[in-house]
């Protein structure tokens, strides 16, 4: 793969639910091993954008997508193998979801779905993912208790471990910190900084400062349009190109 080829390239992406268009022709690209922060108020289409990337938008019966999304050059919207696509694009949802399985099975679920049956391989993978998600030390003695019995912050890290368990090349985090405390949030942010060495990360967040801390570039999405996409320092400087960006970041919106 040529190094300057974008990991994700989105062109003129439009999404409508029924007759209501929520993404009005987005075009942007994400470089390999980049953290792209996506900020924007509620209803601006952040989650919808992520759902297009891993094609879980298919489960919304009245959704209609047009334009193109390419990951490593492959057309996401037209691929028939959505399961492989979803393994390539890890997704962490806003609220922690521990599946009603043991901690071990929560993490082993995706590899098993992908056909990995070998016990040693699963063991190694579960340990690696739980370590990556900064959860291993807390759960290593109770891998076979229910994942749903963990605390909220632990479940969110379990969710991240699960998203890592299928070796994604891209990790999408959708407001991962809204249900967890600041200390855990910081721990996960440290994890993300490490993961960046071998993963492309899309960080959708309500906390503009989180984007500032982590993102290489930041996109300000508003009402389904990209208001501004630039280096994070530029977005957070005193003169971003668009005044709305400045207003949003400084809480002057409205």
């Amino acid at each position: 793969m040529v190094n300057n080829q974008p990991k994700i390239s989105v062109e003129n992406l439009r999404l409508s639910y029924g007759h209501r268009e929520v993404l009005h022709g987005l075009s942007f690209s994400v470089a390999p091993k980049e953290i792209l922060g996506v900020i924007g108020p509620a209803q601006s289409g952040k989650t919808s954008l992520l759902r297009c990337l891993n094609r879980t938008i298919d489960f919304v019966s009245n959704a209609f997508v047009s334009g193109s999304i390419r990951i490593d050059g492959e057309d996401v919207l037209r691929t028939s193998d959505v399961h492989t696509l979803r393994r390539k694009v890890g997704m962490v949802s806003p609220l922690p979801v521990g599946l009603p399985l043991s901690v071990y099975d929560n993490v082993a679920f995706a590899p098993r779905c992908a056909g990995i049956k070998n016990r040693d391989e699963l063991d190694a993978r579960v340990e690696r993912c739980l370590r990556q998600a900064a959860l291993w030390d807390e759960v290593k003695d109770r891998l076979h208790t229910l994942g749903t019995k963990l605390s909220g912050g632990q479940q969110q890290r379990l969710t991240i471990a699960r998203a890592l368990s299928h070796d994604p090349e891209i990790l999408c985090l959708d407001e991962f910190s809204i249900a967890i405390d600041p200390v855990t949030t910081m721990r996960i942010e440290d994890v993300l900084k490490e993961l960046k060495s071998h993963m492309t990360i899309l960080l959708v967040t309500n906390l503009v400062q989180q984007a500032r801390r982590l993102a290489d570039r930041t996109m300000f999405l508003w009402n389904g349009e990209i208001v501004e996409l630039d280096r994070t320092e530029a977005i957070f400087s005193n003169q971003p190109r668009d005044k709305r960006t400045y207003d949003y970041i400084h809480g002057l919106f409205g």
Partner: protein
Amino acid sequence: MSASPFTVTPLVRRNMRRELAARIVLGAMVAAMVLPLLAIIAYLVAKGAPLISLKFLTTNPTHGMREGGIWSALLGTIYLVVIALAVSAPIGVLCAVYLNEYAKDNWLTRIINLAVVNLAGVPSIVHALFGLGAFVLFAGIGRSILAASLTLAIMTLPVIIASTKEALAAVPMSFREACWNVGASRWQTIWSIVLPNSLSGILTGVILQVSRTAGETAPIMFTGAVFFKKIQPGTLFAYSLTDQCMALSMHLYTVTTQVTNAPEPLPYAIALVLLGAVLAVNAASIIVRSLLRSRKKW
């Protein structure tokens, strides 16, 4: 003197009076529901119990139903229930899985769902006529255990679909989304997450249909149940699928209305056996449900 925060004011007293009144009225409603049930059971036991014995259960009726036991009717009911549910439970559960997990939310699905709900409310005599037309006459099965069981299966199908759908819908959507997000297919999601966690609800729905199937008279009257049939005692395989059979519900009806000079305790004893069987099955369903519930995972 300033009022202590716990002083009983008139407002508090009025609330307490209302609370008491609500307790009494609602409790009385429960009593109004429970007492008749207990009365029915007590009455049946008092009138019918003297006749109940192992011999009563395991011998055929004799002397024009006036003597002997209820073996052929009891075994007939077991056949009908087992075969009917063996047909309707798998079809119904898989139907519900399709409707709840696979079907897109469009007008066709909505019509099917509406049809299921409405079919569940169709009187059993209508199902009986359908069974007579479809299985006995059109399919040429003739009046037999098979035709009667299929009719009962058609009758229970919509209820099983409805109860299974409800059990599936009780599994939170977020679990499914989490599975899809990591690349699990719909079937992998259903098999490893949705079904294991809705099993207790599905089983309860199916088992409750046992009592309904055992109690129905109309659908089997036209399609396979007979007034009297003698079968070999002592074996569970006394009927074949193409035989006509006796059934407890039908037997109760004929003994009370068609047989003159039947001994007085006989209908009560039959009803008691029917009720006992139904209660036993329901108790089993409650045990299964509480066993599965105790493993509830979220």
